[in-house]
């Protein structure tokens, strides 16, 4: 027993010493810096038209801390402004007459999954007589709180009582706001944080005043009000998560330090201190004003107060110096606390507001060492470490209580968003590390990062749009090479003269006689020097983030292994009428692509040039675009490219692949090569394949082309399926490899079985090819013919034991919801996927095939 007592004494001593250190060396200097920022803003705004309002409850302590800060500080002794005795629920009540929709939505959100009974009781918990007069056992009050906005409009007895109460609250709140602000036009709310939800209510309810908010930090969630964001000022940080460049943003992952530090030991001010509720509210106010401080629960506040008292009158530079010295260590402590630090940092649980009485634990005592831990209230029967980490308000601290050493540190990194599952096994680093680059170097205009090559010929309307697409890029280190391939040069010059692109980033190459698409690409690429290359044809366009994301990918740890990267694309259907481009629609283009395989490419090209950024060294290795091919040069290039290097995929549609596929634009001047030149594509698909085989006849990968052709042949049978089974509004494939239609499906039940059979056969052959990198050499499973029976196909599929891609028209989610046994199998990894189950078992068992 004596030994246990000694241990406890030792633990207490360590805690005390750590807290002393944290308070004096870390929290004190950081809070003092925040108070300097507050003072900076108060002094900026201070005039006769401005009211400063310290929002209860945090405002009670903020005002006291600010007063302590000002002692010995030049100029002012007392904080300017008044305490604003409110809570979010009081303001919701107060503005419910002026802005009922906003107030009711907020109330509903706070009680979303709780019964309406709790909401009503929470609203009126300081109005016992009203509550006694109500039938709180009414069935209707069992409904969830999210029904409140509709429920309140029904004229039932409970509703009448609530409406009457809210009306009186509205009158009282109007009186309170007028009394506080008088004729002043501007109100500055001073509070702990985080996204100005009270400020938003006041802004909308009282638009005749200007409402600003000064908060310790700004953290925006999905529920924030975008209309007030510029006036929601985070004095120490404005961030949704931890940003290593701003150590103060560590508070974004554990804002409860500030909330616990600033929360007085008094009740939430849920009634309005004016009019009918003045007396009730003042009882709540007095408890906050006269709070009793507890050495254990309030150690952070007391330590900071002590620091401010002992360090009055510091110069601005000294306040900033101490803060800048303390903050990185405080951030480390928040993100990677040791067990002892987590225990020392613990103060008291957070109290829930909005009419609720519960306490929310910051840390939860693991059962194994319940005696030394911080909070026994949070423990629950059957708790495990994972659930405690999930429930605690400080997961990094909870992890420190649960685990030790490298395991704890790794988990803390993960919950702080500093690493991901994908990065876990990546020895080259993480995306976060990629983001921490030094100051960017000045651009070298002779060697830009990207060469953008645009081929054009007498299409100034489209070229102008291409110029806008290039100019809009958020990534600016490029050279734009415009290749006029035998067209009139003057309109091109005019487009260049009117474009807002840095003149040092433009090269204009003009061929008096057309050299053809592939030769034009080669001329443009060779007229530039760059690390990366992309073909931006005059009729296509990009999302503004296209270059930023592709370059970042290729230069980042993930992309270094790739020779190039594609993004997903959007197909844009349009026509040209005069000088106008008329858009008819847009939809995802080949959005099934998640990776790029040679065998897949051998079937046909499945991404447009506008989506493909690649390294110049690969262009040199391939030897450029094949100038003998009048069309399909990009497909041939991609095949050659894949013999040299892999292509990564960014699963985000950042490229727009435009097609003049309707009206008079299908042919003639504005035709696409894939629309206007269909017959040419068919003819040259064979020529290109043959040429590729001649070049690489001894190469195993070339065999993929043969196999690819077989796959393409199977897929082309989709094309020959009766028109009646095709989806309405299906996108033309736009495929420049010929023979691969878009992978849309059909809803016609009878023919769907044939489609599935072709699909599975094609998938089997794809897997066979990808496994061996050669013509079926090392695999026991042989490719299957599209005419094979289901029996043969399923035999091959079983032998492969590999997941196949789902036929696009098959609705996996619905199949799983209709067949819980399959869903269970997928969860337990005994079934590969819903589609595999359907083709192997479901169709034979007569289960329904849900289409999209």
């Amino acid at each position: 027993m004596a030994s246990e007592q000694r241990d406890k004494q030792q633990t207490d001593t360590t805690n005390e010493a750590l807290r002393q250190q944290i308070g004096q060396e870390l929290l004190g200097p950081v809070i003092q810096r925040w108070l300097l920022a507050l003072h900076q803003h108060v002094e900026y705004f201070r005039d006769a038209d401005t009211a400063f309002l310290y929002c209860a409850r945090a405002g009670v302590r903020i005002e006291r801390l600010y007063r302590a800060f000002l002692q010995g500080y030049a100029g002012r002794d007392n904080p300017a402004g008044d305490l604003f005795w409110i809570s979010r629920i009081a303001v919701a009540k107060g503005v419910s007459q002026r802005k009922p929709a906003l107030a009711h939505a907020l109330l509903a959100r706070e009680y979303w999954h709780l019964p309406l009974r709790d909401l009503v009781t929470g609203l009126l918990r300081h109005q016992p007589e009203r509550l006694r007069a109500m039938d709180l056992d009414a069935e209707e009050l069992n409904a969830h709180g999210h029904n409140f906005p509709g429920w309140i409009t029904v004229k039932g007895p409970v509703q009448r009582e609530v409406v009457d109460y809210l009306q009186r609250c509205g009158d009282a709140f109007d009186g309170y706001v007028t009394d506080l602000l008088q004729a002043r036009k501007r109100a500055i709310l001073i509070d702990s944080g985080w996204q100005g939800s009270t400020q938003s209510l006041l802004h909308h309810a009282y638009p005749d005043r200007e409402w600003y908010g000064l908060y310790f930090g700004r953290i925006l969630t999905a529920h924030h009000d975008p209309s007030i964001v510029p006036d929601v000022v985070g004095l120490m940080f404005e961030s949704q998560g931890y940003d290593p460049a701003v150590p103060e943003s560590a508070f974004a992952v554990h804002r409860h330090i500030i909330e616990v530090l600033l929360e007085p030991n008094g009740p939430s001010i849920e009634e309005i201190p004016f009019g009918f509720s003045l007396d009730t509210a003042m009882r709540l106010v007095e408890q906050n004003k006269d709070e009793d401080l507890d050495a254990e629960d309030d150690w952070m506040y007391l330590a900071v107060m002590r620091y401010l008292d002992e360090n009055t009158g510091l110069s601005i530079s000294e306040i900033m110096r101490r803060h800048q010295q303390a903050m990185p260590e405080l951030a480390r402590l928040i993100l990677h606390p040791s067990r002892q630090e987590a225990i020392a940092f613990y103060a008291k649980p957070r109290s829930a507001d909005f009419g609720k009485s519960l306490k929310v634990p910051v840390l939860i005592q693991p059962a194994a060492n319940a005696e030394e831990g911080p909070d026994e209230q949070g423990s629950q029967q059957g708790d495990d470490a994972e659930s405690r980490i999930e429930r605690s308000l400080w997961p990094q601290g909870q992890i420190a209580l649960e685990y030790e050493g490298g395991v704890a540190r790794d988990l803390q990194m993960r919950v702080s968003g500093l690493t991901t599952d994908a990065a876990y096994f990546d020895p080259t680093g993480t995306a976060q590390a990629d983001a921490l680059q030094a100051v960017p170097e000045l651009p070298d205009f002779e060697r830009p990062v990207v060469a953008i090559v645009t081929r054009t010929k007498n299409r100034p309307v489209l070229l102008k749009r291409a110029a806008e697409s290039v100019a809009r890029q958020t990534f600016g280190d490029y050279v734009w090479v415009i290749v006029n391939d035998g067209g009139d040069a003057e309109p091109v010059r005019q487009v260049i003269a009117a474009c807002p692109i840095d003149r040092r980033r433009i090269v204009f190459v003009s061929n008096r006689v057309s050299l053809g698409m592939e030769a034009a690409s080669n001329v443009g690429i060779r007229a530039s020097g760059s690390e990366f290359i992309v073909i931006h044809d005059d009729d296509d366009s990009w999302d503004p983030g296209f270059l930023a994301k592709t370059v970042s990918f290729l230069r980042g740890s993930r992309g270094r292994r790739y020779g190039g990267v594609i993004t997903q694309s959007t197909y844009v259907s349009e026509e040209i009428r005069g000088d106008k481009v008329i858009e008819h629609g847009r939809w995802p283009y080949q959005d099934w692509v998640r990776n790029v395989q040679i065998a897949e490419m051998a079937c046909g090209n499945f991404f447009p040039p506008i989506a493909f950024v690649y390294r110049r060294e690969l262009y040199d290795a391939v030897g450029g675009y094949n100038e003998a091919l009048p069309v399909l040069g990009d497909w041939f290039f991609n095949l050659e490219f894949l013999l040299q290097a892999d292509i990564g995929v960014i699963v985000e549609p950042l490229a727009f692949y435009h097609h003049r596929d309707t009206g008079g634009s299908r042919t003639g001047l504005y035709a696409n090569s894939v629309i206007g030149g269909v017959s040419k594509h068919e003819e040259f698909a064979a020529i290109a394949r043959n040429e590729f085989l001649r070049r690489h006849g001894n190469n195993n990968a070339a065999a993929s082309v043969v196999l690819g052709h077989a796959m393409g042949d199977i897929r082309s049978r989709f094309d020959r399926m009766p028109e009646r089974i095709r989806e309405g509004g299906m996108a033309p494939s736009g495929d420049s490899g010929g023979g691969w239609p878009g992978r849309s499906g059909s809803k016609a039940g009878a023919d769907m079985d044939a489609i599935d059979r072709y699909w599975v056969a094609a998938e089997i052959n794809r897997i066979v090819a990808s496994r061996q990198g050669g013509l079926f050499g090392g695999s026991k499973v042989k490719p299957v013919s599209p005419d094979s029976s289901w029996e043969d196909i399923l035999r091959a599929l079983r032998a492969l034991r590999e997941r196949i891609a789902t036929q696009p028209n098959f609705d996996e989610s619905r199949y799983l919801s209709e067949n819980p046994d399959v869903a269970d199998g997928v969860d337990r990894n005994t079934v590969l996927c819903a589609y595999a189950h359907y083709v192997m078992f479901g169709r034979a068992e007569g289960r329904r095939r849900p289409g999209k």
Partner: protein
Amino acid sequence: MTFPSDTEAHRFDALQSAIYASDDRFRLFNSDPDFRQGLTAELDRLLDGRSVLSLDVFDTLLLRDDSSELTRFVEFGQRIHDFLGSNAAVEREPAAVDIFLARYLGTKVSYRAGRRVQGCREGSLTEIYRTLIRLLDLPVTVDELVDLELECEAERLTPNGAIVDYARQHLDRGGKVLLLTDMYMHASQVRSLLGKLGIEADLTANLISSADTKVSKASGLLFAIAEESLGLPADEFLHVGDSLRGDFSQAIARGWKAFHLPIPRTAILRRREDHLRTEQWLSESHGVMTSVAIPG
């Protein structure tokens, strides 16, 4: 590289590249006859009958030396410290570094919390010094400190001979000259600074600063205000300036003609070195860092 015989390559950046590559733009603009002739010809070509020559002020009409913004701000602190030291009303003047930091805090709050117009905010030198005076509780006026800063600025600025001469020539042939600046100095303060540098008053008669309008060239909104102030449509304006976005891309987007006058690479590199030196001094001598951006 060699092109096929029927292929020609063209560029449009002869002047910009010459400026960017220059090691001494003062010589280029003030005393290189070939460059000046080329610049005049290009501006003539772009003006093409337009009546308004619109000019950016800093690093266009006036050329800054190779000091960084951070260094200049530190110098302002020192200059004010010296001024306060000689002021009998000041009991004990704050340290120069604290004056610099108070100005820095004033700048941050002016840009972050100032009045919004059309969703934009811009800083104001008057607000910056008002906040500084309050933070340090100084018995001086805003105008006194602004004057000190303008004196400091004038020592590090030189009129751009080629641009001043071209503007004079444009006025003389009946055109209008407009000065447009994205700057925390109000128009009256910029005008005062230009006067200190000997720029004649008729060149500064039309001057618009974002500190007054609260919208900027960078946002693209200042160009509309300029058109309104002169009562002329977009196709009457040619704008010249050093900021690719604010002076070139946004002007073109508004339908103006524009000419980009970049800052030389060597000047930017020297400013960066200067910035890093001052940053290091602040860190080693006072243990503080600021978020004043490195020149780019």
